[in-house]
């Protein structure tokens, strides 16, 4: 008799490839969009590079040289090829390769994001652990967090950034950090992390609430397991999945909170690069930053869908609360 699994088993390679078709198609869509943006951008790239006083002949020559008068499909094809091989063009302002510009500006953004993610995850775990151990503390915490979530994240980031400038000045003076050390980003990252921390704490609290009400938990308690042992075995193990999903949802928020913080603290990170490329109408750099961000989001979301397969019959909630709404 054939067992169901032998009927439905596919070769591993086929399922592997199938898992990649979806993200690959999204990647293609992303490239199409980025190309479309630069294609319909007003202004002639050759003229922008050569300046308004250049001769018409040299502009036309540069256009042919850059391949701007080829048909759209061919241009897109070469764009795709360049993206895949890592030649992302040159900045119109500084003539440096786009990837080099991005690399130069990556450091502050990377460290801010790293510290902020660490703070928000730690805050979520810590606050929930305290709320679990001391329920009386947990009760006033939740309305406070919900209030924090309903504030626009932009305001929270700005207010926190202003508060952190004082703290940053104090810690920088007292610890004597040099300008290059990654620890100068430790304090500003608190401002980035404040709003996501509220969201993650609330989401984790909901998850803990579900787990605490589950029959198996009550059975375990009735059998004599102590709350602290159960915290470690049950709650913590299930926390990582929720935290990861919540972090994935908050990544885009982290991006633009980081831009605000970089502005307030004058860090030369990707936010500053974005601002300067927009104000200088530097299209290659702008496309490069968008593409890089898109790639990052795509990678994060692909990994997250691989890890959080939900059973089909598990119904998602009908009415989303604000922290559950995914900001795209």
């Amino acid at each position, binding site marked *: 008799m054939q067992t169901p699994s032998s009927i439905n088993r596919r070769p591993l390679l086929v399922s592997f490839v199938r898992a990649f078709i*979806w993200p690959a*198609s*999204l990647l293609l*869509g*992303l490239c199409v*969009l980025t190309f479309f*943006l630069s294609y*319909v*951008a*007003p202004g002639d790239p050759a003229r922008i590079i050569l300046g308004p006083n250049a001769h018409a002949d040299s502009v036309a020559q540069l256009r042919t040289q850059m391949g701007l008068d080829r048909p759209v499909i061919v241009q897109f094809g070469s764009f795709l090829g360049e993206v895949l091989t890592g030649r992302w063009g040159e900045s119109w302002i500084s003539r440096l390769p786009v990837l080099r510009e991005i690399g130069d500006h990556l450091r502050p953004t990377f460290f801010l994001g790293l510290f902020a993610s660490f703070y928000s995850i730690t805050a979520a775990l810590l606050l929930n652990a305290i709320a679990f151990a001391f329920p009386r503390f947990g009760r006033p915490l939740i309305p406070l967090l919900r209030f924090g979530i*309903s*504030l*626009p*994240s*932009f*305001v929270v980031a*700005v*207010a926190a950034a*202003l508060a952190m400038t004082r703290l940053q000045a104090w810690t920088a003076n007292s610890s004597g950090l040099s300008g290059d050390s990654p620890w100068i980003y430790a304090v500003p990252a608190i401002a980035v992390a404040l709003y996501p921390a509220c969201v993650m704490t609330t989401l984790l609290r909901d998850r803990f609430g579900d787990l605490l009400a589950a029959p198996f938990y009550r059975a375990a308690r009735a059998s004599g397991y102590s709350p602290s042992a159960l915290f470690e075995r049950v709650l913590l193990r299930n926390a990582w999945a929720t935290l990861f999903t919540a972090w994935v949802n908050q990544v*885009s*928020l982290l*991006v*633009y909170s980081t*831009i*605000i913080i970089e*502005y*307030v603290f004058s860090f030369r990170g990707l936010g500053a690069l*974005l*601002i300067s490329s*927009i*104000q200088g*109408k530097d299209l290659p750099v*702008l496309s490069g*930053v*968008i593409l890089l*961000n*898109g790639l990052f*989001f*795509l990678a994060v*979301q692909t990994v997250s869908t691989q890890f959080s397969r939900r059973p089909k019959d598990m*119904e*998602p909630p*009908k*009415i*989303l*609360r*604000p922290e559950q*709404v*995914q*900001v*795209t």
Partner: protein
Amino acid sequence: MNAEPGSRRLSRAVLLQFWVFASFLILLVSPSLFHRLANEGAAYSIRVPQALQTPSAAEWFGTDTLGRSQWNRTLIGTAISLRTVAGSLVLALPLSLILGAISGAYAGQWPDRVISWIIALLHTIPFFLLVVAVAALVGPGTGILPWLVGGVIWAPAARLVRMESIRILESRFVRANRAAGASAAEIFSRSLFPLSTPPAAVCLFYLFPEIIGIDAILTLFGLGPKPPTPSLGGLVFEGIRRWDSAPWLAGLPCLLLITLCLSIHFLADQIAKQLRMTS
């Protein structure tokens, strides 16, 4: 289901429709309301001798560096931001309802796959960067922002509507309707849309504070309304530069912004509460 007497269920349903309607009305009317409340003369007239005054009974929010009334400037800036919000609501809500309904009705087949792919793509693209990039291309101050934001923000709501559609179309009362001979259009308009509008509206309303935030950040990039037109982001970021000497310049508009977002949140919470009680 709850065994409520029919009259109470009816009044709850009425209350739900009321809150949905009222929220839409408030959001759509508020830009012009704010604009009407503002005194444009006071917002634009430069009176340097009265620069940087603290808030008082005459000038509720004080004056900025050029002596203009900060209160009126805040009102006008808020009206502009709310116009973006209202415009994107007008675009995003029907789009999410229709596309979500199509996607749910043909679940698993090609319309569903195409629409789900588009939604996934919109989630992949950093929404904020896309808005910034297109706004950079089109130029500052044009009316493209509501269209842009609406064209991207329908995705989370559409996912919700899709799940709701699948659930509703498989429910007993819709199947009974269909057996009694109702056409697809009748089922969509009588059953599907009224039931899926409140969750979609709640989802969009919860996203509106983010939209206002993005609207504000655009001024960082120089893509907001051109000066001297005030914008919320411009007010806040200008005020940040003078935080130590004149904290009211940034602080009071921020307070107004917070109140605004909390009110939108309150509206959404009311709808959600009615939904929870009728489900």
